[in-house]
């Protein structure tokens, strides 16, 4: 899969057409709307992990 990490940190599959990006985005949004609590919970979970491991990574670099 050809992909690139955008400046915003978003992984983008470069093989996707603009239309496909929009259609996928719409589908993800529909699911997010159905399960709003899950979205918040997992965003918080990922945020915690990032905080934890990025801090650990910084220690290792030091």
């Amino acid at each position: 899969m050809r992909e690139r990490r955008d400046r915003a940190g978003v992984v983008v599959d470069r093989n996707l057409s603009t239309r496909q990006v929009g259609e996928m985005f719409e589908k993800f949004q529909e699911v997010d709307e159905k399960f709003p609590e899950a979205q918040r919970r997992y965003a918080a979970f990922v945020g915690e992990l990032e905080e934890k491991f990025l801090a650990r990574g910084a220690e290792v670099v030091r």
Partner: protein
Amino acid sequence: MSGFSGCPGSRMVEFKKEDAPEGTAGVKASSQLRQWPIQLHLISPVAPYFPGADVVLAADCVAFAMGNFHNDYLKGKSLAIACPKLDEGQDAYVEKIKGWFEEAKINTLTVLIMQVPCCRGLVGLAVQALQKSSRKVPVRYVVASLQGEVLQEEWVEQ
């Protein structure tokens, strides 16, 4: 020092170019435009060619700078053009773009701008509209150089 002290977008530059190569000189590229009007002040965000569409919002100068604008960016898409530097009433632009997101439920928005600093304003209008909109839509922007090369292409963070 060039001696020019005004807006970089108004600085005079002349590109010395060879004529098009023989093989391409006589080739007629067909227009990919599929609607009228195209000026953002004149369009209705819910015109029949916008609902569900992939929309291109291009700064006025872009189509002249990019040699292959029609095939590379316009094909299969709906279009509006505007100038963030010279156009008046740009508050109406934010409302129209928001109308694309909320009422026309467009699929994506691609904002094409030139590299000059004043052109960033067009991306700013799209971002403002996105922030005001209750419906989120993928928005990307493409920055073209004065000679039509793509300098930057990014999706806007939601």
